[in-house]
């Protein structure tokens, strides 16, 4: 084995070492999922934690030493001005970016980079800031696609129609239809996803994420570009989904009013730094947050205060 290859393998092993531990905890986790379909208030263990995350793009610092600890079942908003690093944070949690330093702790397992292709298996689902639906599929098929990670049957089995593939197919469609009804999308089930109005497409994306039955749901600006009515509708859907499925929700949103209503806790980012992490009420009165994001611009115009 050449030296370069060896080094590559070592780095792979260290990056994905958590998978070795995964087997140990998976049995235990399955128990959790089976016994607690309803949100268990007594279990307030950490659902997700970020430890000292650092990320930069060619000298531009996107995230600097961000720590974050999110309880299971909590709705946590991340707010901050444009370019504060909010989307980068979501992309780090979902493994799209690899942080230069720091770890993501998911289900008690530490990752240097979350393996994106296993994300769904780890119980994480996400939506995207810019719509990422499959435009050539119907709304129903888009949501059914959200069950992709559960498929065990091979393509040959699906062509022939083995009992396993038929069972999986029926199961995926049943669940997708339930979720669509839950989000009041039953009426547009057979439309091509790309032909729906923007607000509905956002909701279909939420449906596709929910159908995977995640334990952690990451929403990257789920209400961007929506009208006030659509926003409050979406907020109530997110809350209802959390109450019904009991997952942890991390969401990015610009509209502070909506965020204050919806979230249990709010983390505020500014220039890649976490400058506050508290309940909505505390955030509202935090001077640094007001300076950076919520409030008056006047004194900061020369940049002195930042």
């Amino acid at each position, binding site marked *: 084995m050449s030296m370069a290859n060896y080094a590559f393998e070592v780095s792979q092993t260290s990056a994905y070492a958590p998978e070795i531990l995964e087997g140990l905890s998976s049995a235990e986790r399955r128990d959790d999922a089976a016994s607690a379909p309803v949100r268990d208030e007594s279990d307030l263990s950490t659902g997700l934690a970020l430890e000292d995350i650092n990320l930069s793009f060619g000298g531009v610092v996107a995230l600097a030493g961000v720590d974050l600890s999110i309880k299971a079942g909590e709705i946590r908003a991340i707010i901050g001005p444009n370019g504060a690093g909010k989307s980068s944070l979501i992309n780090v949690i979902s493994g799209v970016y690899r942080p230069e330093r720091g770890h993501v702790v998911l289900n008690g397992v530490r990752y240097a980079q979350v393996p994106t292709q296993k994300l769904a298996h780890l119980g994480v689902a996400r939506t995207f800031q810019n719509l990422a639906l499959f435009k050539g599929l119907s709304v129903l098929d888009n949501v059914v696609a959200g069950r992709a990670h559960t498929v065990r049957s091979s393509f040959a089995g699906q062509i022939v129609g083995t009992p396993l593939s038929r069972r999986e197919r029926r199961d995926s469609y049943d669940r997708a239809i339930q979720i669509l009804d839950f989000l009041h999308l039953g009426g547009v089930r057979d439309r091509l996803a790309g032909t729906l109005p923007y607000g509905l497409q956002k909701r279909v994306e939420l449906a596709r994420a929910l159908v*995977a039955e995640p334990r952690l749901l990451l929403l990257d600006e789920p209400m961007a570009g929506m009208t006030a009515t659509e926003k409050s509708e979406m907020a109530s859907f997110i809350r209802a989904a959390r109450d019904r499925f009991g997952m942890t929700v991390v969401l990015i949103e610009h509209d502070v009013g909506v965020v204050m209503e919806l979230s249990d806790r709010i983390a505020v980012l500014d220039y890649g730094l976490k400058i506050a992490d508290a309940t909505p009420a505390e955030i509202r009165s935090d001077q640094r947050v007001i300076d950076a994001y919520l409030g008056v611009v006047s004194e900061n115009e020369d940049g002195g205060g930042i």
Partner: protein
Amino acid sequence: MSALATEFTVAPTLPKWAAPVLVLIIAYGVVPFVGTSYLFEAILLPFLALSLAGLGLNILTGYAGQLSLGSAAFMAAGAFAAYNFNLRVEGLPLVGSIILSGLVAAGIGIVFGLPSLRLRGFYLAVSTLAAQFFVQWALTKFSWFSNNSSSGVIDAPTLSIGGIVFSGAAGRYLFSLTIVTVITFLAYRLVISQTGRNFIAVRDNETAARIIGVPVLRTKLLAFAISSFIIGVAGVLWAFAYLRTVEPAGFNLDRSFQILFIIIIGGLASIRGAFFGAALIVVFPLVLARLGSFLLGDIFDSGVLDMSQRIVLGALIILFLILEPDGLVSLWDRIRRRLGSALRLTRR
């Protein structure tokens, strides 16, 4: 909303399987008895082989979104593999060598599909050209593939399935038709399965597909494998049933482009599209030749014909890309919808 829905429910009188079943009844029950040998040799046999090739490419390009210019290479691989299996393996039935040759084409497809893990769009198309040139070079260079025949041209074996010999033009037509029907049915089952949905997911948004747990790399290679399998079998039909000879020169880059045009004109990501496109590509030159000699007489010789074919075909593709990007299939569906609503109106 409900108004919209009623407007788009097209003639609910016919179930979805009615049209294909009707086509099959005519293809099996009527055409073999009334068809002339010209119809079989010049139209139906190339049509069936090209339809199948188009179907294969449509799975890769239309459904999975991976552009390929190597189709003719996979056809050649299939044709030569079938020839050699038939020649060198004693007692292997023809169906066996066809399936094995499909698997060989699939293997080559996977190898040349590997760049798709890194490359997209035009860059991938250029890298699939490597398959085109490599396979053609290998088949010409190593005479073992053509059983050391001095001209490189070899004769196809007689066609038979389970002891039934398909001889004559009508027999070869039935042979091709049967294989195309079976594979088309399986391909249809594939594209409506979760795997077919994964293909479209990878095509429409690769990142989102990966995040929801679609194994993107495996899905791409699977698309290459299945597509090449089908195109390989199409190559067998092309060589064994249509041309009755096997030679590398017939599987050049022009053929690859022809198959790509078939699915662009017929309709991407549609099973029917391959058939529509192949029909146009096969019938159109014949119509043009007849029309040309009828209108222009002797001036319209084969050179002029060839040139005018290229020009008109090129113009046609441009027209389709602009006016009907979804191909003949969507044109057909629109016409049918119009006719359906017109019929319903007159009935009232």
